[in-house]
């Protein structure tokens, strides 16, 4: 234990830097995934046929082993000279985040009480007014749950990004494995777990803060 504390003391600034790197990678990926996934999920509620196809593709995406997906990114991005590093890792994470975000957005909007939608139409709301004033606010908790799942998945999978040179907390773990250094492995793992818990807790707070009280239970 003493040795471990000493290890943390020596490496604290490096651990901190890697955590920040990890958080930025995942944060940016989630942001872009949101910009794609939420509008797409909403659009799919108006197109049943496409919805099935897109959700299938997104499901398959999540079953690809992460190390394989990161591996595939290397030759693809080599074409534009970005084979390793931040960009391929970022793209892979965006893809992984799609399923929970699209699926939850789609399901949440679909499940808005039809009578509520009916009332909104009958009162003369235009489709976008209905979406922003009624459907999204009432679908919010389920959409947020999807985002939280995506964030936690991405923080975990982001560890693999170290293998293609994208940095992050995975660096500690991969180095630990190759050197047989348990301190490195444990420190990296614990840091990833703490990061995931903090991110999820923060998003849960936002979710509760902005969920209409009437539908919170």
């Amino acid at each position, binding site marked *: 234990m003493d040795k471990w504390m000493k290890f943390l003391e020596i490496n604290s600034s490096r651990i901190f830097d890697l955590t920040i790197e990890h958080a930025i990678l995942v944060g940016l990926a989630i942001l872009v995934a949101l910009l794609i996934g939420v509008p797409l999920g909403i659009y799919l509620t108006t197109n049943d046929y496409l919805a099935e196809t897109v959700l299938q593709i997104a499901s398959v995406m999540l079953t690809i082993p992460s190390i394989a997906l990161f591996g595939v990114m290397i030759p693809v991005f080599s074409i534009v000279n970005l084979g390793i590093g931040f960009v391929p890792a970022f793209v892979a994470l965006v893809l992984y985040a799609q399923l929970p975000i699209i699926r939850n957005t789609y399901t949440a909007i679909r499940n808005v009480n039809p009578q509520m939608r009916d009332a*909104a139409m*009958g*009162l003369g709301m235009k489709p976008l007014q209905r979406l922003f004033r*009624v459907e999204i606010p009432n679908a919010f908790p389920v959409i947020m749950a999807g985002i939280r799942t995506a964030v936690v998945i991405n923080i975990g999978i982001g560890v693999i990004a170290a293998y293609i040179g994208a940095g992050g907390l995975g660096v500690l773990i991969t180095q630990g494995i190759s050197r047989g250094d348990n301190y490195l492995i444990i420190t990296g793992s614990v840091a990833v777990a703490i990061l995931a818990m903090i991110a999820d807790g923060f998003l849960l707070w936002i979710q509760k803060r902005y969920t209409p009280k009437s*539908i919170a239970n």
Partner: protein
Amino acid sequence: MITFDQTTKTYAGGVTAVKGVDFTVEQGEIVVLLGPSGCGKTTLLRMVNRLETISDGKIMIDGEDSMALDQIALRRKIGYVIQSNGLFPNMTIEENVMIVPDLLGWSKKEKKARFNKLMEMIGLSGDKFGKRYPHELSGGQQQRIGVIRALAADPPVMLMDEPFGALDPIIREKIQGEFLQIQKEVKKTILFVSHDIDEAIKMADKIVLLRGGELMQYDTPSEMLVRPKNEFVREFFGKDRAIKSLSLHTIQNLREIIGLAEFDEAITDTKTINVHHDLRNSLSMLLNQEAEQVIVSDDNGNKLGAITIDLVQKYLHFEIKAKPALVQKG
């Protein structure tokens, strides 16, 4: 005024929900669409604000073909009340009520004033309830809010789809009465869907009875009860339709036409009933034998006479059956 002109609804599969219906809802009247489930009453209602398309024929609102009007503008001009859950849980009561004025771009001040006025109409405090959310209100209060939301921008026409259907009988009866009171003031042209015969008789100036999308009879409640046009109408209103028709008449009507009986001061076991009570309730009071003698009083408590089962029966036979159109609803 809403005019249905050969209005027809055929679904893609070839099922016809509404078949060439013709009738007019006059300005300021409540017309109840009544019929068994699946008779097309809700579909017909929803065709008015174009939540359902019109397959054939026309619906005219104040003389204008509804298809010629902009769909969004049309809906904002028509109040719409649905059975339950029509309130948006993410909005406060004030936001819910003021949706249409808000969509129409009213100023904050206008909205506030209108909200308080509407809340006053249903006897709730605007200040107290405005910031609350729908789930914090009772079912009856929520339904009242649903009604004033439809009235918010003062639309000439209102559509009500079983608005009181989800309430328990006691609250329902109370709100029906309140709503009739409000209607006396606002005089909207109202189309009202119901599957409850008693509600239809109570609320309607006229009833449209539908069956399988076809109009069976369009008449005042008393005409329909006394002179059903066909076997379906007769059966729909049931064997007790004579008793039902009594709810359209008050003791006052009976008093004016055949007079009340003398009451006996010597009898101590008496009950008093207001002269504006309807005859159906009066009759059940008499049949329950709650007291030896039932004395009728006016609003000031003056005793006007006594009412007996014989008198009600006489009134039913000689007045209602003989000349139903004579006595109009209060």
